[in-house]
């Protein structure tokens, strides 16, 4: 099986070098792109809308015009480069300063609860006999005061800042493709906030490991993830050892259990004496990150790869060293300058510890790793995996699944895989091949993806030009719709297919989200529906439907949607009922009744009690409420769930 795959790839890549080399300039040269959308029968505007649906978090009003004006290929090229100015976004991110902290700084500023507790007990602030007894509120308050007195933050606040920035970036960055790719690669190399031990290192993982590498060489991405604290903890490689463990090398001693008796420590030591090979990372790096589950490796390959990666762990972080505390003393003793001489490799937060490394011979996928390979054999292994033809295919298929459709055409995947192999795993080139292929533009790809809850929420706020001042409110809705961002527990990451996102409860919440957003019932997410239409108030609900569905879903065939909704909107009885009910309702107080008027404006602050003006206000209220409802239904409609 594997051999035949290789042969196919070899012959295909020969073919590709003949046919395609000329159309792929070197990195520094300008791209000469040409998108075959006309062959697929698309107009330039339709093609622009398709590009926006695939490479942004949703079109804003006017985006199609702007894109056509700039030129489709030029736009894509600039998105691939990803260096457009983002001043507006940067000022919005100002309040979330701690997302810029290094892991070292995070460790110092956000120590974990058990550590704070131990310190508080040591400092006599909390009596350990009182824990769990008496008033829990008092106890929590004591702990909070203590934490503040020490200048410590709560990890939840850090994670909140991190989540807020995710929502804001997706909504406002001009470099939309880079943002989507950051999401894609994060999910591919998933780490999870559900694992407490690694949670605080996840912001740096996204910022330093994923984000800078999203259009680069795949091998760089793989290497950076392998050496990151978040991944080392999430898939346990930081504990993996091929040799008996040194006495001080017991993570529970620094991190975990408080007040452990000497006897118990000894017991744990005994438990670990046999050497602790942990295969979790080695298995998932093959199954999920590179080769894919059918990539032709065996359990023996997994075990041997795990042995190759023994000793790959985390450098001391922060004042107390955290997970690298055991090595802090070692490093201090031999001196930072002498690390390499002693077989250590320290690279940022990564540490290779030679005394934990299994130095015997290993054989992986038929390749022999000679004894004494040290750190370098791990690098060699990861490079080998990154360049495997199964990896080329697996990664290409995953990219096509995300950006084209749930079942990408095998021909398209083959083309992308060829580019992957030919360009040393250059992600940018793979993305160019994808969009240059007719399959990208075929009818099977148009609007065939179901938006994830995150994509739905962000596309809605982008489409309505919303001002998001409380991003976490959106995050809560996204969670309700079935996507708890950054909390997906399994290393597989969120599945990327419509069936996963669309279930009963989730779908209902999508409709509710649309209604809530349009009616301004989501705090900190402001919209101005009239401004979206140049402050023209639609004359009827039908006009509202026509105008706003086109604004929110540009270049789509909406005839069916409109057809279904019109009779409802035109039901005179219904309109009357709504008007009547609105009349009965008290005059809106903007604060309480935000869903009616909100920021749509023009409503005087206080309405004089004259019947004429009252009537005007009522009419307006009815209209605004009708408009909000129409827009809510559009957001919750099946058409808007697709992209």
């Amino acid at each position, binding site marked *: 099986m594997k051999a035949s795959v290789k042969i196919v790839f070899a012959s295909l890549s020969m073919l590709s070098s003949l046919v395609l080399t000329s159309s792929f300039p070197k990195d520094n040269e300008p791209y000469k792109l040409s998108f075959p959308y006309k062959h697929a029968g698309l107009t330039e505007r339709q093609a622009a809308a398709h590009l926006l649906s695939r490479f942004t978090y949703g079109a804003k009003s006017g985006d199609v015009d702007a894109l056509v004006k700039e030129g489709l290929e030029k736009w894509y090229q600039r998105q691939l480069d990803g260096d457009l100015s983002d001043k507006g976004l940067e000022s919005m991110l100002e309040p979330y300063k701690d997302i810029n902290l290094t892991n070292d700084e995070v460790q110092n500023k956000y120590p974990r609860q058990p550590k704070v507790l131990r310190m508080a007990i040591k400092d006599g602030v909390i009596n350990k006999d009182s824990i769990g007894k008496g008033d829990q509120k008092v106890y929590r308050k004591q702990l909070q005061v203590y934490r503040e007195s020490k200048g410590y933050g709560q990890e939840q606040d850090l994670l909140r800042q991190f989540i807020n920035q995710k929502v804001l970036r997706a909504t406002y960055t001009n470099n939309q493709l880079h943002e989507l790719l950051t999401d894609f690669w994060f999910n591919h190399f998933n780490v999870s906030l559900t694992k407490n031990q690694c949670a605080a290192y996840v912001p740096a993982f996204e910022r330093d490991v994923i984000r800078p590498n999203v259009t680069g060489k795949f091998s760089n991405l793989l290497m950076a993830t392998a050496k990151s604290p978040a991944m080392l903890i999430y898939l346990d490689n930081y504990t993996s050892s091929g040799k008996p463990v040194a006495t001080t090398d017991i993570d529970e001693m620094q991190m975990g259990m408080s007040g452990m008796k000497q006897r118990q420590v000894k017991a744990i030591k005994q438990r670990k004496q046999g050497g602790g090979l942990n295969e979790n990372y080695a298995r998932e790096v093959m199954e999920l990150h590179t080769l894919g589950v059918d990539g032709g490796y065996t359990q023996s390959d997994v075990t041997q790869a795990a042995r190759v990666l023994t000793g790959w762990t985390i450098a001391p972080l922060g004042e107390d060293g955290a997970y690298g505390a055991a090595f802090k003393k070692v490093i201090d003793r031999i001196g930072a300058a002498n690390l390499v001489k002693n077989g250590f490799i320290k690279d940022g937060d990564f540490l290779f510890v030679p005394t934990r490394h299994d130095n015997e011979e290993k054989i992986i996928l038929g390749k022999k790793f000679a004894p004494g390979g040290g750190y370098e054999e791990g690098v060699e292994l990861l490079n080998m995996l990154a360049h495997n033809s199964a990896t080329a295919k697996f990664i290409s298929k995953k990219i096509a699944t995300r950006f084209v459709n749930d079942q990408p055409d095998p021909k398209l995947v083959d083309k992308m895989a060829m580019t992957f192999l030919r360009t040393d795993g250059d992600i940018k080139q793979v993305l160019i091949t994808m969009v240059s292929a007719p399959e990208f533009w075929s009818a099977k790809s148009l609007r065939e993806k179901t938006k994830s809850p995150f994509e739905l929420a962000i596309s809605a706020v982008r489409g309505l030009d919303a001002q998001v001042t409380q991003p976490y409110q959106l995050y809560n809705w996204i969670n309700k719709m079935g996507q708890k961002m950054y909390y997906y527990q399994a290393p597989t990451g969120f599945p990327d297919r419509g069936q996963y996102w669309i279930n*009963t409860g989730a779908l209902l919440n999508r409709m509710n989200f649309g209604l809530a957003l349009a009616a301004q019932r989501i705090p900190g997410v402001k919209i101005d529906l009239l401004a979206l239409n140049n402050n023209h108030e639609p004359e009827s609900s039908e006009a509202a439907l026509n105008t706003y569905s086109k604004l929110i879903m540009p270049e789509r065939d909406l005839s069916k949607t409109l057809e*279904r909704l019109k009779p409802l909107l035109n039901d005179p009885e219904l309109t009357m009922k709504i008007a009547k009910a609105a009349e009965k309702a008290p005059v809106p107080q903007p604060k309480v009744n935000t869903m009616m008027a909100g920021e749509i404006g023009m409503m005087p602050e206080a309405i004089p009690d004259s019947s004429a003006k009252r009537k005007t206000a009522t009419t307006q209220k009815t209209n605004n409420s009708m408009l909000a409802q129409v827009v809510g239904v559009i957001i919750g409609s099946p058409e808007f769930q697709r992209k």
Partner: protein
Amino acid sequence: MTSRRGFIKGGGLALFGIGIGGIPGFLAEAVAGTQSPGLFKRKKIMVCIFQRGAMDGLMAVTPFTDEYLKAARPTLFMSAAKGSSEKPLIDLDGKFGLHPSMSAFEPMFRDKRMAIVHGIGSPNNTRSHFDAQDYMESGTPFKKGTDSGWLNRAVGLLGHEAATPFQGISLTTSLPRSFYGDNAAVAINNLQDFNLQMKGNPASVNMAAKSFEDLYDQTSSNLLKETGKESFDAIKMLQKTDIKNYKPSNNAVYPNTALGNSLKQIAQLIKMDVGLEVAFTESGGWDTHFNQGKETGIFARNVNDLSESMMAFWTDMETFQDDVTVMTMTEFGRTVRQNGNGGTDHGRASCNFILGAGVNGGRVHGTINPLSVENLEDGRDLAVTTDFRSVFSEVADKHLGIHNDKVLFPEWTSKTIGVMT
């Protein structure tokens, strides 16, 4: 056979035409507390409760004759002897004693409806909460990348199409690892939220509902169309009862806790006969490193909540008791020896509780050897003598009729311990 959904459709029930909130008369008769008219074959239901944080099985169900345990827990050990303290352990069989705050379990145990398995745990000896929960919920103790959870696979193995969207339900804010996977499973934190939420007047609410229903009915995407239909059916189903003013049967009183409220809602779903077959919920606070307490304290409060909630559920189930089995689980147990903070640290085996008519109850199953150091795992922990998969698969097999344990728990060969009759 008439499926639930077929019935709803066949009844021509166009609720939105009538107006949301209107309850059709014939459905209104099938209100909470009474069984449905018997149009459908009732299905068996398995309810799982995950005790997150690792419950101290040795304090919940104490081998009170064990002198080693007594010595290892100078301030935590409780005795079953009357007069030894205000509240002695409840002597179950001369060897094991139930924590006095779990007295709610005693009648169910004596009645042979409840079984206990002691020494249950995972073959993977990780002491990390995250890893151990992950392994237990995926059902693959040595593999992290398993994309599905065991309860999701259980749903897939039920052998029939889901008649309703409520076949697999988790009473949690987001879907737990146990329910990850390809089979439909829904996380609902609160049944009352399961509706179109609008603050407007009834006419506009009705219009939005009608608009959505029409749009989803006509969409070209089958996925959206089918799920849309299911969603509206589901709303209609739930509307037939007054969820907010639910009155449990038999004067059952649920504790006003997260677990109590979850079990109450599961009971409502079961009585509404909406097609529920696998339910999940969880309880927290079991990570008792500090001042675990004895007759009172954190642990006593937790087990009291667990036992009172389960008892209320069981009492409330009344005529449904034959259909329901409840099973608890926790990621690992705690150290035999107490620590310096009046608590216990991460250990290995714990115990679990299984409640139901088909349970081989009134017994403490499993093996616990004397807790001398040489019998302990790694010299410190209660040894795992029963693999959690043998108990989970036996309950799933006997209660839900799921025989394919190769799919339910891959890379594992079934060994039952007779916890079900």
